[in-house]
């Protein structure tokens, strides 16, 4: 054995334990085709994260333990990460939402998983380290309750039947009863309900069978249940069961309806503050049919989606308010700059920020400084003055930050917003990128 490994692994010669096995199916061509259909039906759901859970889902789980930071297991040819077995339980839907690929009027092949099939695929994919767990959604094939029940039964079979400790994300079916939502929360790490369209008017136009109340009511119930469970744990009750420890999330479709980014950001802000959502995902609309109610968009607005994620980050981690970064009514975020740079160009009076004196809140507003950079600066300030060379060593994006900071003997060049805007726009400020480091400025 390598010398490093021998120092770290206790090499023993004890008895070898037999592996823990369950009886899983050997997949045939039919199951492979079914998996393809139901994966394709689920691919427009953006959420594929497996983060936010610490500790084991089950004590003494036979297989699986979620990682707090989440793990990506692959990346598709469109650059999106694959972390979960993201499938629909069924794509045979009774609803006719105009933007949806699985609406009942769409001419697509239909399929439905059996419980054993989905359990086998999840278990065996997890053993091979293809996935972190299961993301299960479904079309509504009869009533919301029956659909929700079938999904919960799959999750319960995995958790309680086989001791699966991996990540489980369940979609809540709008209109499902509270009983099924609570049962789902007890086995799932995360619950989510997709709002999809950012205004009631658009919802009524494109999804006549869905209502705002049918979406928001279960969201608020999940919030209340999360609070109840947290309070019980706070009282010291030892056997409070877990309930959706990774919280709840939602998804908004961008570009299928005429709302501006201000509407989308205000809705997201309200969802974070009032409903306690962990994440709002944004999905640039990809036309999936020829419904006349949907605008023709080609290609999808990926850059707009990216700017919304950046603005979302500013709301959650950088102390910005929605009023500061939202564009004017009905408009989109500036495509040329990230929202923080756009804000900085409108507020020249705020700069320069002194990296050796100013507080965290001010540092976080400097373009080119991410949360991680700011933490490093604050820690390094204990040991002496920071100069420009040290800032660059710390990973600050200097080509942007240099206009907004002063430190040691460095003073930023004088700038006029319009001149600086054109200079930053010319220096590649608007790449078509979808990668978003959590705490790094890019």
């Amino acid at each position, binding site marked *: 054995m390598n010398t490093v*490994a021998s120092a*770290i692994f206790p090499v023993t*010669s004890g008895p070898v334990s037999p592996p823990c096995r369950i009886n899983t199916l050997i997949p045939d061509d039919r199951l492979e085709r079914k*998996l393809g259909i139901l994966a394709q039906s689920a691919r427009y759901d953006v959420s594929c994260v497996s983060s936010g859970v610490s500790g084991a889902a089950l004590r003494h789980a036979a297989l699986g333990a979620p990682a707090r930071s989440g793990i990506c297991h692959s990346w598709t040819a469109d650059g999106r990460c694959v972390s979960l077995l993201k499938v629909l339980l069924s794509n045979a839907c009774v609803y006719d939402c105009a933007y949806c690929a699985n609406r009942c009027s769409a001419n697509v092949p239909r399929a439905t998983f059996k419980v054993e099939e989905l359990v086998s695929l999840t278990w065996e994919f997890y053993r091979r*380290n*293809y996935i972190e767990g299961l993301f299960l959604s479904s079309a509504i094939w009869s009533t919301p309750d029956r659909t929700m029940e079938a999904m919960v039964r799959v999750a319960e079979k995995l958790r309680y039947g086989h001791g699966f400790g991996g990540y489980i994300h369940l979609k809540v079916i709008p209109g499902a009863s509270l009983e099924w939502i609570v049962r789902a929360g007890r086995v799932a790490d995360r619950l989510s309900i997709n709002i999809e369209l950012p205004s009631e008017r658009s919802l009524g136009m494109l999804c006549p069978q869905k209502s705002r109340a049918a979406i928001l009511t279960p969201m608020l119930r999940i919030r209340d249940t999360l609070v109840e469970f947290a309070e019980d744990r706070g009282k010291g009750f030892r056997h409070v069961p877990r309930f959706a420890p990774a919280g709840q999330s939602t998804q908004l479709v961008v570009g299928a309806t005429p709302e501006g980014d201000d509407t989308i950001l205000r809705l997201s802000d309200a969802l974070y503050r009032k409903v306690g959502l962990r994440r709002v995902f944004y999905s640039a609309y990809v036309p999936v049919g020829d419904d006349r109610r949907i605008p023709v968009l080609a290609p999808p607005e990926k850059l707009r989606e990216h700017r919304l994620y950046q603005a979302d980050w500013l709301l959650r981690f950088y102390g910005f308010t929605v009023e500061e970064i939202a564009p004017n009514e009905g408009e989109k975020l500036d495509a040329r700059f990230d929202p923080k740079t756009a804000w900085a160009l409108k507020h020249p009076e705020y700069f320069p920020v002194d990296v050796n004196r100013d507080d965290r809140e001010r540092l976080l507003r400097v373009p080119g400084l991410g949360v991680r950079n700011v933490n490093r600066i604050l820690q*390094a300030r204990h040991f002496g003055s920071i100069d420009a060379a040290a800032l660059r060593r710390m990973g600050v994006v200097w080509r942007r930050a240099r206009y907004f900071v002063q430190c040691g003997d460095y003073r930023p060049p004088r700038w006029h917003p319009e001149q600086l805007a054109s200079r930053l726009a010319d220096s590649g400020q608007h790449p078509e990128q979808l990668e978003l480091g959590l705490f790094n400025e890019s």
Partner: protein
Amino acid sequence: MNPDPKPAVYDGTFAGWCAACGCLLAKASAAPLYWRVGSDGDGEDLFENTEVPGRPADDSNLNLFFTLLEPAGGRKLVYDLLCVFLSEAPDRETLMFQMVQVSVALGQRGRRWHSRPDMRRAGMLIDRVRREAHRSKGLLRFVELRDGTLYARYAPSHDVTPLVAGHFRRRMPRQRWAIHDEVRHYGVVWDGAAFHEAEGFPQDMAESLTESESRYQACWRAFFRELEIPERRNLRLQRHFLPERFRKYLPELD
């Protein structure tokens, strides 16, 4: 007054380095001129006046090291030191000793002196190793052998197997699995209770696999293929996330 600096020798293991470092700290020795791997019984000593301070078996030095480090950062510091060690950087031992010296002098915040070039370099190495370990945790692919063992090969850019193996012990505690580092030619086996040294690896993979293995790989490929949204195709971004060294082990890219 500190004695004159000398070269230091250790046995090439992380524990050996810790023991050597403990000995140096106890004697309040100056930083060694350089570090080399060897032992006092390995033939002619090419380095005159070389100090041979510790071996992994020397528990007293190892305990001394951990006692001294407790107020200076404890387990987190040891984990960071391990990451620098696993980076295999040529100056890793010197950097590690500087990390220890700064931490002992300044306490837990010493390692956060990001404006200091050596601490920043150590920080960068730690980030690189942790990133490679994190990537490996996601991109390692197991195949099922006929005896039920799950077997994975990979070629990481740093020696991250110790970090990766700990992750899979938590993830698959009751499975039997083996991880094989094809760059450094070693592997570890988890048998459901303890780690073992891997003794040989399957030569003919096709012969060694279970019947269901190819079926599950086919299902995984079908799933992976259908997840792509063609209108969003961005191969550059995919290449960015999937480094070449991992690609040949991924069944979905076959």
